[in-house]
């Protein structure tokens, strides 16, 4: 019983440590022209080359590109306009999502 209690404490303290010290940046980007996943692969390829990007996804139905990165990741509008144009799509707007 004591061992189990110690294990639970260890796991929960590890979880607390992770959430307290690791900050992630989440971005929600509106783009037009997203009609199929195969065509949009170029967007993923370009985002994954940006330093700090850790996860990429697209919500085709909502026309949203969802990007997660480390705390140093900063995405700028001018950079995104070029990125989407090079991928063959149109950038509309970016929103940083705060997750707490």
């Amino acid at each position, binding site marked *: 019983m004591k061992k189990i209690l110690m294990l639970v404490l260890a796991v929960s303290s590890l979880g607390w440590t992770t959430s307290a010290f690791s900050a992630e940046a989440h971005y929600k980007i509106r*783009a*037009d*022209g*997203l*009609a*199929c*996943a*195969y*065509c*949009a*692969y*170029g*967007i993923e*390829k*370009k985002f994954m080359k940006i330093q700090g990007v850790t996860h990429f*996804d*697209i*919500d*085709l*139905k909502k*026309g949203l590109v969802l990007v997660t990165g480390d705390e140093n990741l900063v995405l700028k509008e001018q950079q995104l306009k070029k990125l989407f*144009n*090079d*991928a*063959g*799509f*149109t950038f509309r707007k970016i929103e940083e999502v705060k997750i707490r």
Partner: protein
Amino acid sequence: MISKYLWKVITIAFPAWLFLTGSVFAHDPVFSPGPHVLFKDGVEIHAGATRDKQDNATEDEQSLAFKYGLTGDWVAGVEIPYERSKDELATQKGVGDITLSTKYRFWRKDTMGAQESAAVLLKLKLDSSGAEVSTDTTDLMLGFTYGYESLKWYRWASVRYRFNQDRGDLQRGDRLFVDMAIGYRPQVHDYRAPDTVLILELNGEIRERNALNGVDIGASGGNQWFVSPGVLWTLRNFAVKAGVQIPVYSNLNGNQPRSDYRASLELEWYL
């Protein structure tokens, strides 16, 4: 022997690919071009197989193509085929002529979940092969294509004209290709899930007569129309396209073999 020859062909074709531009595949119909291009600095590898069955004759072609995205709207490519034609009398086979191609998307309108665009394309079939399957000519094709893609529906239209070069005393008639297609996606999936689009095309081929020393050849020229059901299946950066062309109308001059069917299977990877 073949591999040595293939290597020679690749070493000739690759530098040429770096200087010329094009694309006819990607997220387009199976038997006709659409305006789709490749993302900037993207590479596409394409492997395809086609069969054309006419009475007792069969023509098979396996091809390998590479494409490169010069910009987000401009793509260049090179295609190397291996051809085999067989009839009651003989079989001919070998590496066919290299084709260089380019496609430029000059207009694009993006809206929420949809893209409408138009492109011009150019293909140049070189006289690169010494095999019997070669036409021994350099043929140029120019084309225009329009497309609308949405999450549910697709529509495409294209027109292409091929200027066939004369071969000795034979004047080879030019060809006009007219295509229309629609596509339907039964279900919209997540980005990382497999995706299927069903396609139905109408493909027309209008051929001029050939002539020998200025005298028309009776059994040449005319037009043929095909209805072509097909399917496009993709999983992120991998695509499979397959379809069958079924002749629905033929008005060929003289006694020419009519197409029974044509079939195509294509695999594509984005790198």
